């Protein structure tokens, strides 16, 4: 009994602080944001009071933000474009990261750490500096302020987030499985498609999530490399908070984005589970 209680205390001591941190700085702000999306903007930014001081004063709760969102095509279009850009970026990252991850995972042990270091090395220099560097590179090619420039920048920044989970997964594969497949008659392609690829699906899913979700929220890269004509959801949210200072509208956009991401993630998880069951 005493031992059990000791274990329980340890569990709270270990799990408590980070749990409290998440509660305080993630769950609570999320709730504040939900409420904020139903409020009026303050006169000079911020929020109008929840309880108006007198008649004629603006305040209280409203569904106006949602009405605007659902009544104008433009928001739907920007959302759709953002999801398209994010999906395309994820796909390009996957196609580029897979060979890199495979190469690292099949290298001799002592060389792997160095290669992983090289993959994460770009993080050592400032993110904005790296994106501005692309401006200088792309300028002479007349590619600046195009959709291609945005995607190039997004892929460049997010590639390591795809490489690392894929490598972690591929590195764990037992090489004897490939020997067995070959021994039983599988050629190179069959060995990849029937053994390596299906076993790497968890790595593909986590890598894709790590690229797709952040890309949906970016605003700096489209702003720097895409110019003002190629806005994504991230730019819209940033502009709502910092540009027109309409906090409730920004909160609403942010919330809608979260809902969409959860819906996509849920659909992907469902499809993955069904795929595994069938396989």
């Amino acid at each position, binding site marked *: 009994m005493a031992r059990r209680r000791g274990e329980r205390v340890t569990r709270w001591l270990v799990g408590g602080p980070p749990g409290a941190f998440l509660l305080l700085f993630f769950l609570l702000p999320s709730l504040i944001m939900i409420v904020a999306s139903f409020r009026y903007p303050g006169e000079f930014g911020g929020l109008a009071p929840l309880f108006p001081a007198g008649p004629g004063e603006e305040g209280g709760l409203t569904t106006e933000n949602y009405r605007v969102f659902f009544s104008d095509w433009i928001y739907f279009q920007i959302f759709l474009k953002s999801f398209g850009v994010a999906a395309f970026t994820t796909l390009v990252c996957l196609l580029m990261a897979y060979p890199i991850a495979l190469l690292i995972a099949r290298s001799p042990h002592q060389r792997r750490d160095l290669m992983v270091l090289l993959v994460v090395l770009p993080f050592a220099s400032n993110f904005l500096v790296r994106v501005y560097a692309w401006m200088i590179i792309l300028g002479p090619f007349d590619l600046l302020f195009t959709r291609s420039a945005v995607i190039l920048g997004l892929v460049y920044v997010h590639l390591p987030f795809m490489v690392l989970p894929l490598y972690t997964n591929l590195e764990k594969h037992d090489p004897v*499985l490939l020997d067995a497949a*070959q021994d*039983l008659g599988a050629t190179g392609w069959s060995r990849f498609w029937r053994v390596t690829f299906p076993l790497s699906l968890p790595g593909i899913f986590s890598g894709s999530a790590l690229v797709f979700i952040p890309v949906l929220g970016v605003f700096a890269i489209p702003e720097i490399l895409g110019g003002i004509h190629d806005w994504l959801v991230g730019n819209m949210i940033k502009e709502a908070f910092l540009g027109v200072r309409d906090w409730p509208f920004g909160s609403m956009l942010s919330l809608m984005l979260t809902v969409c991401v959860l819906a996509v993630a849920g659909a992907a998880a469902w499809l993955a589970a069904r795929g595994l069951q069938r396989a």
Partner: protein
Amino acid sequence: MTAILEIRNVTRRFGDFAAVNDVSLSVASGEFFTLLGPSGCGKTTLLRMIAGFDDPDAGEILLGGKDLTGTAPERRPIHTVFQSYALFPHMTVAQNVAFPLKMAKRPAEEIDRRVREALELVHLAEKRTSFPHELSGGQKQRVALARGLINRPRLLLLDEPLGALDAKLREEMQIELIAMQRELGITFVFVTHSQPEALALSHRIAVMNAGRIEQMDEPSKIYGFPRNRFVADFIGHCNMLEARVADATPQGLRLEVPGLGAVAAPPADGARAGASGVLAIRPEQVRIAAPDAALDLQNRFGGKVRDFLYVGDVTTYVVDLESGARVEALLANSAPGRAKFFEVGDAVQVAWRHDAGAFLHG
């Protein structure tokens, strides 16, 4: 008996180290052939070369008379059962077993039928939709076996396939392996470091050591007539007494064993007077009896029981002879009389027939 697999003067070096050194052997069609040896003796390297995962530096490997050099593993009609089973974790039992047929592009209905048959053969019909992680060690072993056999390879290589099983299951699987091999008539090349397993399963055994074959013969010959010190020591238990040949006749040898004096032994090839070596004699060939018992045996020595090991069916006695030599003797506990025959410290005599044991050079 026609040879299906022929290995001719195969050598494989890793740097200066010859893992397989000028090995030649041939395996007959339908044979259960075992490569037996301690770890690092080259048996696994040899197996990998037969499967095609490694190439010999010299010599050739022929299957059905055709040289296999340059043929990729996936093109060889040879399948392997790996030590770790190497089942595909993302496939069900049925999908694992179907894999070789799928690779051979057999029609779907044929695959279905043959997978069903194969799973029935290994008693796993009800597990067809399970995944490998849901199976016990013995069941995984059976799946690996079914997968290796389903496309009827001309040769099935088994790399210590029973190594990971506990003793009881091991014995069951051994019996099943023998039955399956006989029923299907597929040639097995089995690799193991376990000598009881090799003796129990094989038609023929090649005992390997340091990249070479020390002796190749039927199990009873390997056990009964080890050709050298290594084989005698590696296969089963063996008493080894340093000896010198005093006299050699076609009827037998007279050996001089330091401390024991004259010992009679069966004739040995090339044993001349003056040659030195060891007398190898198995514990079960050594009789142990009370000092006053009348034993009509030529080689008879007095001693004291130093230790004994009771294992149920038999007891092994370690006897210190008066001369200082030490001999192990086996006594069956089924013999009438007391459960235990001798205690530590008891005076006893040990004896063996003049034609028991073998003189080994070197």
